[in-house]
């Protein structure tokens, strides 16, 4: 898998053949099974999938914060474009507690979570915690750090920052807390922001605010975003490129318009069809995907979607591992329906 010509620029982060295995009582669970993707400067990559597909584990593996039970292999290469000392570094090869990864975590790659309450310590004020992050990574000067922290709070749309600075997390509402977390994550000008279901716990009107905020901050600061979500609506509104995950594998990856207007994988198609949308035809039944997601424990090499797939080819899809097929420069899919097309291309 060499870099494609279409993307002349070097990616900030390239994940290759990422595998995460968890030993369970009844066998080995392949939670993430050979995931590749790249994150480019200033772009947003969406990682979409249903619960248990491995999207959160994938995103957490990047900054090595998965629990110890996760055996991780593969490579996650980070290329900083402005610091020579950090040139081309395999994050997976670093010790999760080493100084080097800590200098990247938070400083270069920041993360926001679904539930901001757990990301803040209830014992310290919001301002204190943002300042701490700044003092670790940016400046030792306390006054300066406070100034930056206040600026950040203003930037994420928290009014009355001086007062808010000295408040505790429980005094913030859900939306405000999420804003505060974004301000903490962005306080060190990271190059990559990983957002794991950042708005799932929020109401729609607040969700709209937070998404809008993320978009405008990206335009201003130019960071890359890895957006992990189950909501195709958010993907459509936020992302440049989308990777659809199912059962630990990326089954389809393409620019956002390709995914929505020209989906190839039966799972992607099924997902799009099963989603009710505003303004949709009410009288029509929703096309649902039959069955439910199996547990990826002791799974033989076969297509994980086989049992639920309408277009499955018996004897093909359930007997071998599905290779990745390139539909076009930027569109790849893991499905045997398209694998003849692969023959034509030089791979």
């Amino acid at each position, binding site marked *: 898998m060499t870099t494609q010509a279409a993307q002349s620029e070097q990616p900030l982060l390239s994940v290759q053949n990422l595998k995460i295995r968890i030993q369970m009582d009844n*066998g080995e669970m392949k939670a993430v099974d050979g995931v590749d993707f790249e994150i480019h400067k200033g772009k947003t990559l969406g990682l979409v999938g249903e619960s248990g597909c491995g999207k959160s584990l994938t995103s957490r593996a990047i900054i090595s914060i998965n629990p110890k039970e996760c055996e991780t292999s593969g490579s996650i290469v980070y290329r900083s474009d402005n610091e020579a000392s950090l040139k081309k570094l395999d994050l997976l090869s670093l010790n999760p507690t080493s100084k080097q990864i800590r200098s990247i975590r938070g400083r270069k790659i920041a993360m926001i979570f679904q539930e901001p309450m757990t990301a803040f310590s209830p014992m310290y004020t919001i301002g204190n915690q943002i300042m701490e992050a700044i003092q670790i990574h940016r400046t030792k000067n306390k006054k300066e750090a406070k100034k930056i922290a206040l600026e950040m709070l203003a930037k994420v749309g928290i009014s009355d920052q001086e007062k808010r600075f000295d408040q505790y997390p429980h005094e913030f509402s859900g939306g405000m807390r999420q804003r505060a977390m974004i301000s903490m994550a962005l306080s060190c000008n990271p190059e990559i922001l990983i957002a794991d279901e950042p708005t799932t716990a929020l109401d729609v009107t607040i969700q709209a605010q937070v998404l809008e905020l993320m978009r405008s901050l990206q335009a201003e600061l130019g960071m890359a975003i890895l957006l992990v979500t189950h909501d195709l609506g958010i993907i459509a509104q936020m992302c440049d490129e989308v990777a659809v995950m199912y059962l630990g594998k990326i089954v389809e990856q393409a620019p956002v318009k390709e995914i929505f207007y020209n989906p190839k994988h039966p799972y992607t198609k099924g997902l799009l069809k099963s989603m009710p949308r505003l303004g949709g035809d009410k009288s029509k039944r929703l096309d649902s995907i039959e069955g439910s997601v*199996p547990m990826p424990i*002791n*799974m*033989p*090499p*076969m297509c994980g979607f086989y*049992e639920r797939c309408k277009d499955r080819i018996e004897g093909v899809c359930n007997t071998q591992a599905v290779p990745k097929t390139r539909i076009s420069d930027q569109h790849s899919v893991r499905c045997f329906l398209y694998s003849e097309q692969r023959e034509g291309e030089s791979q």
Partner: protein
Amino acid sequence: MRTMPVFRRQKTEAPQPVKIKDANYSSQWRLIYLRFKKHKLARISLFILAFLYLIALFAQFIAPYGLQSYDSKYVNAPPMGFRFVDAAGKFHIKPFVYELQSTRDPETMRKIFVSNTEKRYSLQFFVKGEPYKFLGLIPTSTHLLGVEQPGRIFLLGTDGMGRDLFSRIILGSQISLSIPLVGVAISFVLGLIIGGISGYFGGWLDSIIQRIIEIIRSFPTLPLWMALSAAIPPRIPVVTMYLYIVIIFAFIGWTDLARVVRGKFIALKNEDYVIAAKIAGVGNTKIIVKHLLPGFISYLVVATTLAIPGMILGETAMSFLGLGIRSPATSWGVLLQEAQKIENVALYPWKLIPLGIVILTVLTYNFLGDGLRDAADPYKK
């Protein structure tokens, strides 16, 4: 290469007879059992405890001597082990002990015991000894082990009155191991009823019960014990004394359990599935019996198990202070009280063996409680 494990055949599968082993068909108790089985330390503890209680149950039979028997000839005798090889180097199939003779140390003039290698008494099983009632019912005088008359066996030595420590530890375990069980059983009932009322009805009743619990819990236990045992007349039979002690413990112990019950009751009362049952028209009693009780009974078992060590220590402490069981009746606390002089540590260290037994029991109960706690909610991931 491929072993092809069968993958997800749910749909094609024909209805099968129920496999009992399948976790999918397992009830709450079975899941708890399966989880508990994985906790090694707890399992070992369970075996040790079962062993200890078995000994306590057959204490009179196992102990070579009774409570009343003492021999002023053998005061503070050290533990003696069995021998197979005699002083002359000859091997005997039957284990034996030598006769103990007390002499004086020629230098310090302290009383010491030496083995008289002339006299051998071999070990015997099912010997006739002091009469007692087996399991409190059948009068008999057979003991598990002893030595030929007129020899004596003191496996763990003797105390200051020449009583066999081994027998006393075993006989003492009857009281020390059963008081907490009975005490906990009474607190269990009290806690269940009072905590249940508090949690189910709520409101002012709940407030009053909670305040009472807080008041009881805020008493310092030591003065409380002293006050309560001062209220107990001094010359009463052991059985009555025993009952009083149990009541004292239950009086303090139920508060913890009542709190657990109340907390679980309140949490479960608002669970969706309880509300669902209510909406479905299920009656109140049935909701309590079918939904609430099974929901917290496992937690209650855990809380109960973890309450026992406290009671064992409590009984020990009370007897140690001379407030509980008194000689010649015995418990581990009584034995420790008798061993409390500092000279014992230096001269007669075997008198501290009961301490080891107490520690062992408390530890195993705690491990068991730990294991149960981990298993109590098998639905949590």
